């Protein structure tokens, strides 16, 4: 009985770790991507990219700590991430920033499906912040940030 309870606890813990590692991977990709985007931006857009880059870097640190606390090793950032299209101008940089935020929203949505209520709430709050950044880069809002069409 006790063994079964512990088994369940481990399963819950490992689902949380897997979901947190996915968020960390998305945040690491965002840090790298905002570096690429920022290089193509100027003025207010450059400042916004710089600000968002900082937010994602801080999120990486926080997530790494959360994963370590749970007894796992945080996944390392890749040396480089290939953007989905060449980032050779301000327009592409803005599209990339919005796409990076979409990836981050999807990753936090994974936390919202966990049984751990604190992680659910954390994921939902972070989703809002990322959705606001995505909408401001894109200049428009969407009905279901992060949800794949197949879930609707």
């Amino acid at each position, binding site marked *: 009985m006790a063994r079964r309870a512990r088994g369940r606890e481990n399963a819950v813990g490992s689902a949380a770790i897997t979901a947190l590692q996915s968020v960390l991977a998305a945040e690491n990709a965002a840090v790298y991507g905002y570096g690429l985007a920022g290089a193509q931006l100027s003025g207010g857009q450059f400042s916004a990219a710089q600000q968002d880059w900082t937010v994602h870097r801080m999120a990486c640190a926080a997530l790494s700590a959360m994963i370590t606390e749970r007894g796992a090793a945080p996944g390392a950032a890749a040396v480089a991430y290939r953007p989905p299209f060449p980032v050779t101008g301000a327009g592409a940089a803005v599209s990339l920033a919005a796409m990076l935020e979409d990836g981050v929203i999807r990753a936090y949505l994974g936390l919202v499906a966990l049984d751990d209520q604190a992680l*659910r709430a954390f994921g939902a709050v972070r989703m809002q912040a990322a959705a606001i950044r995505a909408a401001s880069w894109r200049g428009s809002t*969407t009905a279901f940030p992060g949800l794949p069409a197949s879930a609707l």
Partner: protein
Amino acid sequence: MLPVAAIAACGAPDLLAPPPGPSPSVRTLRASITAEQSLVDAYQRILAAYPALAAMLHPFLSQHDEHLAQLKGRLVIPPHVKVTPLPSPSAPASPPASARAAITMLGDAERAAAAAQLGRLAAATPSLAQLLASIAASEATHAMALSSLNPAALNPAAG
């Protein structure tokens, strides 16, 4: 033929008990539907009072219609469960005194709705929690976008 103990373990329904109420997840879903409907109503009241805002507000209203459709689509109440009907929307308040005030009011309502969705996550199934979190994120973006709208710039008569 099942042993008697196995049949007993299946839990025969207690014939004297009152019909079960809706599950926490159904109650959560119904609360979300009511909240979403009242946001749609607020938009419609404001659009009736300030038709010049239609182009600005329509994207948000149509996204709320999508939220409402998704939420209602998930509401399946088993026939043996007794539920009270969804509350009818509260009596319409008089519209705000200016288009700017109306936009501010909608922004506040969006923010409050997003916060309330977060309060419902704990009682939701994982899949409903994801839908509610996504709707809350959409509402948070509406609040942000509404705060940057300038009705006076679009149409001086509307400000």
